[in-house]
């Protein structure tokens, strides 16, 4: 019992550190029920709604009530051309920046058709802008998509490549 309590206290302390780290830049990375509550199960883009790969979805809360949500989708319903440029969605309920590029409130598609760049598209598939990604070669256990706290906001990872999302 004592051992369990000690373990529980240690867990709480670790959680506190984690929240503190995540809160740097005013962002909290969502997990568990908080995450599933905000991730849409599907996303409309260029004439089709495709299911979200829930295992490859992430979200962050800025401040108390502003969210940025991202996920990869099952693009198998799209033509080869669309699949080549589109892999997932980005939803933001406030104006943000992506590596310094402004992105107003809205829902967008994104992809990595150009090596080393992330391209953001509107829902009709029109390119809005591209930003260079940074390769985090030291990242252990990369995932197809994940977020982690960054001093300037949140890192949105695709494998070992990431862009930084910040509030405006």
């Amino acid at each position, binding site marked *: 019992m004592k051992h369990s309590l000690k373990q529980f206290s240690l867990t709480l302390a670790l959680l506190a550190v984690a929240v503190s780290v995540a809160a740097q830049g005013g962002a909290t990375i969502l997990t568990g029920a908080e995450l599933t509550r905000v991730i849409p199960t599907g996303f409309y883009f260029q004439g089709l709604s495709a299911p979200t790969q829930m295992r490859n979805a992430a979200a962050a809360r800025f401040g108390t009530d502003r969210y940025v949500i991202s996920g*990869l989708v099952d693009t198998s319903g799209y033509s080869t051309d669309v699949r080549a440029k589109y892999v997932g969605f980005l939803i933001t309920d406030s104006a943000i920046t992506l590596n310094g590029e402004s992105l107003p409130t809205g829902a967008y598609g994104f992809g*990595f058709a150009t090596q080393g760049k992330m391209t953001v598209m509107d829902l009709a598939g029109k390119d809005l802008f591209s930003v260079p990604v940074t390769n985090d070669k030291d990242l252990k256990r990369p995932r197809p998509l994940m977020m982690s706290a960054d001093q300037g906001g949140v890192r949105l990872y695709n494998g070992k490549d990431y862009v930084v999302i910040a509030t405006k």
Partner: protein
Amino acid sequence: MASLASVAQAQTGGASTGAPATYTSRRTVGITDPNAPVIFEDVTDKTPLANFRHRSGEAAKDYIFETPSGGVAIFDYDGDGRPDVYLVNGSTSAAMQGKEKAPRAALYRNLGNWKFEDVTDKAGVANERWGFSVAVGDYNNDGRPDMFVGNFGVSRLYRNNGDGTFTDVAEKLGVARKGWSTGASWGDYDGDGRLDLFVPGYVQIDLANLPPKPTGAAGQGQNFCQFRGVAVMCGPRGLPGEGDTLYHQKPDGTFEDVSVKAGVNDPEKYYGFSSAFVHVDDDKLLDLIVVNDSTPKQLYINKGDGTFEEIGYPSGVALNENGREQAGMGLAVGDYDNDGRIDFHITNFSDDSNVLYHNDGDKNFTDVTFQAGLGEVSIPFLGWGTSFLDFDNDGWLDLFVVNGHVYPAVDAHQWGTSYAQQALLFHNNKGKFERVGAPPGNALANAWPGRGLAVGDLDGDGRLDLVINNLDAKPVMLRNVAAATGHWLGLHLVGDVSKKTPRDAIGSVAYLTTGNVRQRQDVVSGAVYCSQNDMTLHFGLGAATKVEKLEVKWSNGTVEYFDVPAIDKIVTITQGKGVVR
């Protein structure tokens, strides 16, 4: 030469299954080397295996269930010391509806001296369902190996009656799994001395409501049935996956479905293809790896209370080194670098490399594919059966991979790949692999629509031979004729059921030391791709003429040490009784 523009690296979100690239030649056929040594000789036509024709649907491959069959097993069903061969067959829609004769699986009894006899009818193992996989295990501990045959439809458990015949007891014992059963594995996960059975499920298919054919797909807006802009069969992505099943064997010999309770039911319904019970962390409990197509792989650690913890992501096995999901097909299990821990080699789709996971210990794995020399060379191939084997008996596990594409359309386009593909043989030079070339006109220069693969010493000469099951074609039997090979030792392990080790010793591990090399071999059911290697453990000894130490960790966790009186032969070791012959 081919241009390797971006290929796998261009893939982002989902599984790497075909990023467009431009090529000027096919790199999966016709690659020969006049200076390469002759390792394998194709002896198929000298055997009745030449009469076997695998069949799986129609040549156009309009539907996904027509493409991944089938497995092959090498096992000594009659206990005469000569390993026999079982070939799984597919089926056709017409046969499923009773409109034509169903293709038959086949069992070939090894008579010695490369003579085989087709004993399918006598044995009663023709299956005549849409077969995919075979996994061997002596589930009733009577000393006679039994077979689970995974089907699209209802699976079978062939009990070996010991008189040359088998009886399908799947319904009676509770393992007549429905759906699409793929690469199964036997293992005693709860340490009661009775084998349990894990069966991955692939895709849910409703024959009454099939996806559109490629020719009609585009017109119906089914873009997901495209590969590089060309209409192809649909799936697996876009189709519903199927969960996995763990059958626990009860004391009365019947089985119960404990998938949910054990935590291995795969609620995400990933597209399962291969599995194996293996010791990942080397405690006394068997763990489980599941290879999935187009979705993450699962690694289940046995908690010892009847449940498993899935650690695919934290262990590093779920994804490749770049965090990408891959289209996993086959699974090789072995300690390729002789560090005492089990490693995994997994085959993938074309335009992506196969993957080699090195076991770092403490349930951590590192993707070392490219460092080990297995990356670039495998990219144009669509891999299926893969197995570690020491073909030259130098004490280091080499690697054999069979390949073949799923889309016939690849032959009509210059995509750098082909429908029939050469197999790949890699020599292991102390942990680094190098492709062994194919001499012109040799078996390895041929291209096959390969699927299943099994390894075993069919002629007892100490050199490991191979059987490959090819889609819609005749199989290939490859005799190992390598000139420069070292000494060897074969081990046939027999567990003591009274000590709660299964009789066929599945889950037991042998460690053999010669000089400063300590090798490890595990008794494994399943893996490869829907296939079964001979469970006789084979150690290459190189120039060593004696075994300094032989340690067997039985599946019940006890350890025994044995003196090996002679080498260059197969010896039987019975738990608690030592070397008996």
